[in-house]
């Protein structure tokens, strides 16, 4: 599928490489973002699941020049990126939505916990708030739409899921995902230069405690 590009205001653009949650597609987005960040005039490139948002300085480059550069970069053979770090995250599966989610999915709580803690998830991106990693893909048997009414307050450390995604709320924020449990492992590292424990490309395995 050829990429699509749109302006995002007058100093950013969005390039879309696809519309699925897919590890190889996401890896291409991260490789493209990394390559673009090396170009002069590019201030920041953010890889989403299947897109890259490029923040640029219009005095030093242009939408048209970036569009051409993106097409060229995408024709190059994708380099294999670093495989990322593996994190084992201890989880107490005692969240307020655990029983309801199991019932909606037609599973026992034990099966839900087993299914959720079995895969090694990929960090597709970090966003929303500092340290919030979007992990996936979630097993099909666990996929539920997000809650109809989001909670106004989700405690930090809540392990949650929605759709094809799972993740850990790093800070007390509002949130619409289903809360399965909690971890004491800090996700937001407020004392480092890279303040998110989880980084794009890392892998995550939850283990029940």
């Amino acid at each position, binding site marked *: 599928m050829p990429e699509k590009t*749109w302006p995002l*205001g*007058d100093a950013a653009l*969005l390039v879309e490489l696809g*519309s699925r949650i897919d590890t190889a597609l996401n890896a291409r987005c991260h490789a493209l973002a990394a390559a673009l960040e090396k170009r002069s005039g590019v201030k920041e490139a953010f890889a*989403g699941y*299947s897109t890259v948002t490029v923040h640029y300085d219009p005095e030093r480059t242009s939408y048209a020049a970036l569009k051409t550069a993106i097409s060229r970069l995408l024709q190059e053979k994708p380099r294999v990126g670093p495989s990322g770090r593996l994190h084992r995250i201890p989880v107490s599966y005692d969240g307020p939505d655990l029983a309801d989610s199991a019932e909606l999915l037609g599973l026992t709580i034990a099966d839900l916990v087993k299914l959720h803690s079995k895969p090694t998830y990929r960090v597709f991106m970090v966003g929303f708030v500092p340290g919030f990693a979007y992990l996936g893909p979630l097993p099909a048997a666990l996929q539920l739409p997000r809650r109809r009414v989001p909670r106004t307050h989700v405690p930090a450390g809540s392990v949650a899921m929605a759709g094809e995604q799972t993740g850990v709320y790093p*800070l007390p924020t509002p949130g619409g995902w289903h809360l399965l449990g909690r971890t004491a492992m800090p996700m937001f590292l407020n004392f480092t230069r890279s*303040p998110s424990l989880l980084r794009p490309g890392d892998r995550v395995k939850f283990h029940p405690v």
Partner: protein
Amino acid sequence: MSWNTSRLSRRPAPAEGVLLVEKPGLLTTIQDLGRPGHRKFGVPPSGAMDRFALAAANRLVGNPEGAAGLECALNGPVLLALQPCLVAVTGADFTPTVNGAEMPPWTGVYLAAGERLSFGGRRSGARCYIAVAGGLAGSRWLGSLATYLLVEKGGFDGRTLEAGDVLSLATSAPRPLIAGRHLSRRLLPPYGREPALGAVPGPHHGRLNRASRSALLKSSFAVSRDADRMGFRLEGPPLALSGSELLSIGLTMGAVQLPIGGQPILLMADHQTAGGYPVILGVARAALPLAAQLLPGDQLTFREVGAGDAQEEWRRLREALEQIA
């Protein structure tokens, strides 16, 4: 009191207190031009909501545009000068005064030790900016002094100012201190309570049906009570979108998202860095200062511009800043 050029013999050394906060105001934070480059960790750019006003305030006191100053929302603080300093007040008009006498806005003004900068009340706008020659010191996080309240980082210990806080200078003030630099009103962005914000159609604009596309440009949108440094929820005619659910994308200040329900959200300085709602518009950089000065109940309209024209508007705004020398 005279506003004329003053030259000082005594250099205030960095880290010496320059201003004592006698009253903090409702929501006063240290801000600079933000910390871009960290969205990949989920960290928004933060910094001044009205970047033009902060940059102008800094230039008016001889600072680099990105020096840290104060952003004061809805009302201003009471600040006592502990030593002679040069200040400028820009952005919203909260009736700035020095020892009770009204001082000119958008102008470098000399404060003698013992003089008080305070504010008589809001006349227009939402956020005023105070720059001090030398720039304010603060705690630096990821390359910026901007306060980000959600994680309590940057600025004054990551928090809003409180009575009794003492503000220090980041560097020795540039010498000589030159008071009286001024930015003419005719060079300011067209601030007002009903601005037309230049905006570039965004990635998902094409998903709007014909009636909604027309309503987006022809209707007024009110800023709702849900408006803060993260973004403004707007209230207007419901807008209808078609198409399947989206995967989250990286966002930017000025992006206009359209959640289910059809009421848009304009993202501002502390915006969430990623989100899955369709992005129908991107407000141009030149129009963001206008948005930053809106309060709940104010009305705005969107005016469609191409990215190239929007960049030209930004250049013109920059020329105004560069006149301050």
